[in-house]
């Protein structure tokens, strides 16, 4: 029996002991600290990781703006005003107007709904299918791994946008086709990274110890290995979200996603491209909106990486 926090067998043995006896540390550093409430811990974490906090705050703000779009938007996103086409930014229209005289600020705010909705659904599907598949394949190996690997390779061998074009052509260009295409593009990557993380982790001494103790495969994968592989997977999900937002915008830019008059950021840029010489502001703001959302998800992903790494956490 080992005392908690006493590391007699080197760092590799620590997770195995954690399995047998529960978490080694109840706090960030030493077990002798009194346990604080979840809220207090969350606040400390947010204070300690300002870039993560900023990313999270921006994501939350954009989600709130998308949810409350009808309340905060100054105009109707779809009603044209031919007296005011392609106006630059002004007090009346902070982001200017588009080729049909519609307020761009309003359309950019409404655009968040489509971007978050389509990308979020695709990320959800990719996570629920890709990660368990990759973890299991990496753990069991053999025929199952080979089959998953080949199908994943086959799907992976399609460049994302080419595959999305094929799916959009098959299903007809729409937001639904975009979700299916984006999820199918992401699944092989999610499963491959999960499998890679599994290949690294399954060689760990703690897995051997867990196996020796007679744990079931489900326990080993989901209770022993998953927490240790969680860092790269959470980073994958948040960065995957960022990538999917970008891909979704690209698909719509090519005319394969949500169709006009839907105020979607990529669709707005597709129209704005025609007016890049006469009205560059038209292309500026939807692009900045995509950048902001993707930037925020990238900050969250990077923050999660640091947060999930106990060695990084202890050093700070």
């Amino acid at each position, binding site marked *: 029996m080992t005392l908690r926090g006493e590391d007699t067998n*080197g*760092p590799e043995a620590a997770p195995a002991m954690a399995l047998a006896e529960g978490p080694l540390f109840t706090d960030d550093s030493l077990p002798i600290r009194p346990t604080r409430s979840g809220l207090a811990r969350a606040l400390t974490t947010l204070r300690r990781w300002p870039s993560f906090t900023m990313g999270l705050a921006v994501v939350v703000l954009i989600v709130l703006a998308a949810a409350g779009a009808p309340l905060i938007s100054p105009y109707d996103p779809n009603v044209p005003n031919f007296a005011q086409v392609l106006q630059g930014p002004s007090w009346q229209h902070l982001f200017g107007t588009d080729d049909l005289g519609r307020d761009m600020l309003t359309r950019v705010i409404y655009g968040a709904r489509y971007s978050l909705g389509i990308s979020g659904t695709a990320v959800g599907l990719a996570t629920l299918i890709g990660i368990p598949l990759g973890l299991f394949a990496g753990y069991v190996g053999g025929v199952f791994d*080979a089959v998953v*690997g*080949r*199908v994943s*390779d*086959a*799907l*992976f*061998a*399609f*460049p*994302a*946008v*080419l595959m999305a*074009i*094929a*799916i*959009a*052509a*098959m299903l*007809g260009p729409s937001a639904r086709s975009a979700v299916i295409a984006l999820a199918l593009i992401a699944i092989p*990557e999610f499963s*491959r990274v999960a499998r*890679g993380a599994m*290949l690294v982790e399954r*060689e760990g001494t703690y897995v051997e110890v867990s196996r020796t103790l007679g744990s079931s495969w489900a326990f080993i994968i989901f209770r022993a290995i998953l927490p240790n592989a969680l860092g790269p997977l959470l*980073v994958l999900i948040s*960065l995957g979200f*960022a*990538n999917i937002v*970008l*891909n979704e*915008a*690209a698909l719509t*830019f*090519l005319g394969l996603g949500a169709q006009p008059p839907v105020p979607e950021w*990529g669709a707005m*840029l597709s129209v*704005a*491209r025609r007016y*890049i*010489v006469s009205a*560059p502001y038209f*292309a*500026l703001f*939807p*692009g900045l909106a*995509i*950048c*902001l959302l*993707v*930037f925020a998800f*990238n*900050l969250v992903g*990077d923050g999660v*990486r640091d947060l999930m*790494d106990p060695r*990084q956490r202890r050093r700070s």
Partner: protein
Amino acid sequence: MARFLLRRCGQGIATIFLISLIVFLVVYFIPGDPVTVMLGAQGTPAEAATLRHEFGLDQPLFVRYGLWLWHALHLDLGTSVLLGKSVVGEVLDALPVTLELAFFAILIALLIALPAGVAAGVRQNSWVDFLARGVAFGGQSIPGFWLGLMLIWIFGVRWPIFPTYGFTPPSEDIGQNLRCMVLPAFTLGVYLAAPLTRYLRASVIRTLSEDYILMARSKGITARQVILRHVVRNSLIPFVTQLGLQLAYLIGGAVVIEQVFSLPGIGQLALIAFQNRDYPVIQGVILLVATGFVAINVAIDVLYMALDPRIRLQGSAQP
């Protein structure tokens, strides 16, 4: 090693067959009739039947797949319905444009990512790290097609320095060819450099916290040697995989960038083919590009094994 290579190549071939089946079925299930598209409203049923027979569209599904595969194995991917030229010829015309774009984009990306990623990882939380992370964050958060549009506005409209659309083959005018590649390659290169820098940085940081680095330091190896021989080498393992993953994104990105800069590459060929239901071109482009990716994936696995002795040993120990 030889057994691993053989097995991996066998897997690659199996994957290509699987892709060919997926490609064939995806195109088969695309709604709409190419014969109707070709003939337009004036076509008679008799003409349609003749054309169907000519293209083998009246045959059962598996016969069509078998015939298509057999011809594909002989590098005959049919004739473009839209242009009447051979698909292989069409692809070979478009491929050099995409490859040139991809080559310059990878070059720009590696020139940015390798030094920036290692420096940021080694000097974590220093000004170098903040600068590299900032630039990488920015680069990764910018949609390629939007960056392309902004570059067209800045360097094509406001200060007309570079051509903003079209392609001049190097055989015609090498200077003009390079000039018309600057904006698209930079756009795509930044798009690629950002995730590579971030990934290499994360990888270097992870490697630095490994115990064998502590061991190497305690043995008295100089900091420079530790970084070059242990940190960089071990960090390159996941980096190589990531580079492979990014190559698929690169071609995906190239499809969009070609559209923005009106470059007559593979992406534009595919997009026009899809818009016009040009089935043979769709199938040909996807099959050829996908086959290229499988070959890259196999090469990466072999590289991965060569770089990591643990995987090499495990690979040779397996039956």
